[in-house]
């Protein structure tokens, strides 16, 4: 079934991925030797979603455009200067003229499990409730991020029976207070400190009109979702803003008015019962059905690579230079080099006597003789000097780690960082 939804993929700078994004745009960072954006595009294609629009700052276009054009995907950019401080809401407002149907907003950094088709979320959106404005995908984190930075802890409140989002995942506070009104509308709430927002939203077109009407809303996650979810228990809000949404009348509401079973007919005119108010739904992904991860932090990026490695582990009986690792074409490995549990990109040149364990090596990296990498991320075109020993380091693109240097727990090695042994 082809979905009547437009998929919009937002590509940001990925500040939390520094230094990896120094020379590679975030959507082109590779996870298991495949660019991040391909995962999202594949996800859409799997569910028969072909109307995809990718948005990014114009500085990405040189590298991103060829890839997208080869897939025939629409691609729009905005000048970097203009969009420097833009959040998701601003992007949508700017391109609202291109969006004419209900749509799905996707990040470029999510890797969904094969067990969760995008259509399942869309279906949840369309069938859950007549007045659903947004359906947001939430998931439980399944990774241990170790020393790298993972997603910050969040607190969210939702109604387990109707899966209504009451308070979307928000950064945790020390304590919190709940409005008593909220409790009267939703008497059995679940407060979770483990749910994370996947930044996958299925939205009504009407929400875009609302965005246009309220230019203060910058971010979908931080501004729009909390505000919209309040509508479900504050009837005044929905009354005031409902007009912007252009929601067609529920065909059943008329029927209910004439129903002999309806005892509160008079009440309905002044008070919108909670079930008739617009609401934000959440789709909660069960961690047992596969792992969702987002490569929006260094920790997330590293763990997603490992997860892909686990899933695509090469056959143990096949003899390779790198047991338990994933290597791409044109990789040169010198004598007596040991590669374990690692991902090696294209055209990587590994010298003699190297030891690479649990690391992610991007394309065109040169690793000289005797270098030792343990649990490192090395970005494109980086050079690791002879006998350099790096543990838990993240090396930016085009940087040059000089020979005999020894580093442990340096989170961002870039071309500017000088390493002295």
């Amino acid at each position, binding site marked *: 079934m082809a979905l009547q939804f437009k998929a919009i993929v937002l590509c940001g700078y990925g500040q939390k991925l520094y230094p990896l994004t120094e020379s590679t745009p975030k959507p082109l960072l590779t996870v298991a030797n495949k660019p991040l954006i391909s995962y999202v595009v594949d996800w859409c294609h799997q569910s028969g979603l072909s109307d995809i629009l990718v948005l990014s700052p114009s500085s990405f276009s040189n590298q991103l455009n060829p890839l997208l054009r080869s897939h025939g995907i629409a691609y729009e950019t905005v000048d970097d200067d203009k969009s420097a401080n833009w959040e998701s809401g601003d992007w949508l407002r700017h391109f609202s003229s291109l969006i004419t149907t209900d749509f799905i907003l996707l990040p470029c950094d999510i890797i969904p499990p094969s067990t969760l088709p995008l259509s399942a979320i869309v279906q949840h959106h369309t069938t859950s409730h007549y007045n659903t404005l947004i359906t947001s995908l939430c998931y439980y984190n399944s990774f241990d991020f170790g020393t790298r930075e993972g997603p910050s802890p969040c*607190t969210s*409140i939702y109604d387990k029976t109707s899966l209504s989002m*009451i*308070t979307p995942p*928000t950064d*945790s*506070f*020390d*304590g*919190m*207070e*709940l*409005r*008593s*009104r*909220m*409790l*009267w509308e939703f*008497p*059995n*709430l*679940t*407060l*979770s*400190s*483990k749910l994370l927002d996947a930044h996958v939203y299925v939205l009504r077109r009407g929400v875009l009109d609302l965005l246009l009407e*309220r230019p*203060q*809303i*910058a971010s979908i996650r*931080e*501004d729009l979702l*909390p*505000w919209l*979810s*309040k509508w479900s228990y*504050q*009837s*005044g*809000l929905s*009354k*005031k803003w409902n007009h912007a949404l252009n929601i067609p009348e529920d065909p059943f509401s008329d029927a209910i008015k004439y129903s002999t079973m309806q005892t*509160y007919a*008079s*009440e309905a005119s*002044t*008070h919108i019962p909670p079930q008739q108010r617009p609401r934000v739904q959440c789709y909660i992904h069960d961690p047992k059905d596969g792992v969702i991860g987002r490569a929006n932090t260094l920790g997330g990026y590293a763990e997603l690579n490992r997860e892909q490695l686990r899933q695509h582990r090469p056959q143990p009986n096949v003899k390779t230079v790198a047991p338990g690792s994933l290597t791409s074409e044109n990789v040169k490995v010198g004598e007596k080099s040991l590669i374990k549990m690692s991902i090696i990109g294209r055209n990587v040149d590994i010298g003699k006597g190297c030891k690479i364990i649990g690391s992610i090596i991007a394309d065109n990296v040169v690793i000289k003789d005797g270098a030792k990498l343990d649990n490192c991320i090395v970005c494109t075109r980086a050079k690791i000097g002879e006998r350099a020993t790096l543990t838990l380091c993240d090396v930016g693109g085009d940087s040059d780690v000089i020979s005999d240097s020894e580093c442990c727990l340096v989170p961002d090695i870039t071309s500017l960082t000088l390493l002295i042994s």
Partner: protein
Amino acid sequence: MEKSKRFNVDYDFVDQFGRIHIDSKPLPTPPLPPRPQQQQQHIVEGRSRPDRPRQSEPPLPPPRISFPEPTFRGSPIAQHKYTPERAHRPHPRHSEGSKSATTAFAPAKPPPSPNKNGFTVSPSESPHAEQCHGITKQAKRCTRRVKAQNIETLPRFCHQHSKDILAQKGFFNARGTWIAFDDWIPRHLSSFTQIQLRLLMEKPIASTDMPGYIYVYSIRDTASATHAEYKVGRTNNINRRIDNWSKQCNRELVLRQYFPTSPVASSSRLHTTFAVADPHLKCQHVSRLERLIHLELAEYNAHSAEEAQKSDNDDDEQGLQAIVFADSFNARFKPLTATRPRCLLPLVNVPMLAWTLESLAAAGIRHVFLFTCTHADQIKDWLRHTHFASSLSTLSVTPIVSTTSVSAGDAIRELDAKQLIRTDFVLISGDVVSTIDIQRVVDQHKERRKTNKDAIMTMVTKKVGATHRLRPPAESPVFVINPANQQLHTYTTIAHPSLSRDATQKRVAVPSEALEAAELQIRNDLSDCYIDICSVDVLLLFTENFDYQDLRHDFINGILTSDLLGKTIHVHTIEDEEGGYAGRVMDSRSYDAISKDIISRWTYPMVPDESMPDADRLYHDRGHRYMGKEGVHVSDTASIGSCSVIGSHSSIDDKAAVNRSVLGQSVTIGKSTKLSHSYVWSNTAIGDRCDVRESIIADGVVIEDDVTVSSGCFVDQNVKLLKGTTLPPYTRVGSTRWNEEDEDEESEEERAERVRLLGESSTAYLWPSDKVDMQVDDVDSDDEEDEDFQLSMKYSRIGMKASSDTFSSTSSLSTISNDNSDDESVDDGQLEESVEGLTLENAGKVGAAADFAQEAVQSLERAFDEGHTAENASIELKTLRMAANVHLSQVRKVVMDFCLSKVDTSKQPSYKAVEDVFGRWSALVIEMTKEDQQQTVLIAQEYCASHADSHENIFLAVLRVLYEYEIASEEAIFGWYKLNAAREEGKMKTLWEKSRRFIEALLEADSESEEESD
């Protein structure tokens, strides 16, 4: 005999006997091994008393042990044969071919005994682990911890030392004979028992250990086919001991065996012949022998140690106790409760206490302590006449009378002082109707206590939905629960938004500790059943915290908010699928709700027509109509609506209408009388053409013709309402005067009111509803709580409903106004603020400040309108400030803004207009703004700048008034003039420029005055 056959051994330390429970499904093995003790004799003898001449071996017929076949079952319990020659010297065990011998021991708390290394055994420090008793090669005590078994203080060894001990093959006894352990100790025993036996065998024998006999009695448990108890004991005069037992023990004893026996006696199956024992045939060192027997039998007990513990628990459960409070410690039912205890008020024609006790009996509670304060005699009297007093009742009720307790807290403290409760108990109020399986909750509570000793209480709640009639609308409980372990983190009450505007402002705080849990449930759909499973610690906590009064607000919140106590409270929620009902009659509103639930059979099997043994006998008819089985007369033209109860001997006259009401026994309803949602107790007569709505009419009331009783009235027993009386809503009519002892004379007003409502010749009295409610309830409620309290009182009355239209209108109104303010903040670009549901705690403070501003303005508004003095207004403001804990600058701003807004700007001259306001209120303004006068001027400027169109022109006048009324001194004005903030671009600047004239004038005046003074 196979190894699998086993004994369950229990101890009876008191009479120095081992009682052996025998699981008789597998064939029991003979409990008496003959050989080890024989060996032991030799060993010990030689070793402990080497100088002593060797005792002659028992010269005579070698002991021959065999158990007679048990009479209660056809199978032999002992098949052990003992041959004479084996009695004389140690025998290799394996030659025997039988491994069935087992022993039990029952030493009464053995004293610390030296082990083989001469180390003194100390009792274990902890119940779960103790130090290994072995000695290391460095001659130090082994430091390994060993899991302790709950048997007694026997030395225990770590795996290393156990191995060492078991590696030894045997030892030389005192006479130099090699004794191999394997000959004597069955290998199938656990290493623990083997070690204990080895250690004991090696030990020297005490000089006091005399020759004697071992005997075995069996005692059958008549209630169980699978259990038998055995007593293994020793004596030095077997004949006398047997005689004593047969005479003094009142249980059914069967002597199974004694040792040593003569072959003649043992061949007989008649137990009486045992009594002829040969006095010369004695076993050496019978104490050691007995201990060895018990040690070996203990092995089998070790298997059943858990079972034994479990059976202890069973004993507990059998004795599951409940504390029932017969008193509710409030006056919500006055005057109905003036002369009788509340728990005996009829609920659907059965006293409330009967419902509670019946609920408890059905839930398997065996013992109830009934705590009574007022009218204890009546309760005791009632108890004597119910079936609970009969010997057939499974529930035994012990009334406890206390005359001094005025709260639940006092009552619990008193119970603690009495030391009646030793185990977990159920705490329940005497007005609860429940069909909940309390036993299951208790089991869960105990299970939780095993891992978490701090879990002191489990509250029972039932899922009902947010607006269910069981939940009090003005103080609906909200629970914050961790679903993983059902721990309660927050307990609070909120009011329904329809009841009061302020109620919607209340927020439920989730403490930060609770947020550590992965998930929390915040539930506003639970009804508190007021059934609590408590451990004994609860009593103690009440005693330690003598200010706890209320079980909920004081105790629960006290425990939850205390970091020091570290105790946890858990909530058991009965979800829909579980079934079971529980509700408590807290007030007349819930009285109504629970009556209706009982009538609609939500409480099945506890329904009016069944299971209430002492109650009126009723038929259950279509539409939940219940009719008494005897003497009910209903006119053909009368209409009985659904969900009604008509007690026996009642009569309903022509054209009367009874709708959803409960009538007690012998009630008469006159012609064309209408009764709806009302409760009429027994022996009451209601005349013709009356109208009674949502009220409670007590027993023996006479209501004459044409009387109207509006919603929410209480009519006390034996009151007579005269013809034509009309009671306004929520009237309480008593048969005695309210507060009789307080006032000698009825005041004029009271009397006038009484006569107006009840008629000249009435002997009944009016009870002021509000005051009655307040009487006991607010033992220590603060002023600020009063409003909440009154609200909750108001909505605790029967007939008081949060009507649907008030709900919708107020709630939508309040939301709109709320949301407008939200929207404004959003429009100002402060999107963070719009995250309403989630606020930081300091955001709460911002809220408090906003509240303060609002309240302060209101208070000022009142002061202006009602012409309060400035002093009073300032005192009020100060109080408000204290309560809201806001900064003085805030107060200053509020006062100045308010005063300026009150200035009539259209009035000329403007100076006069300003003076009107500030002159009148100068005292207030000075009081509020004196700390920082410079700031005061700035505030005034800001206000005028922001309201430029009206106030721009009066700013100079304001400055002048401020100066003249000494609200701002010269220095303050000069200081303000120099401020940067006062010169900001825009309106501020224009105002500042305008003031130049005034400043100059001021400076001039200043210099003039200086000159003068010079």
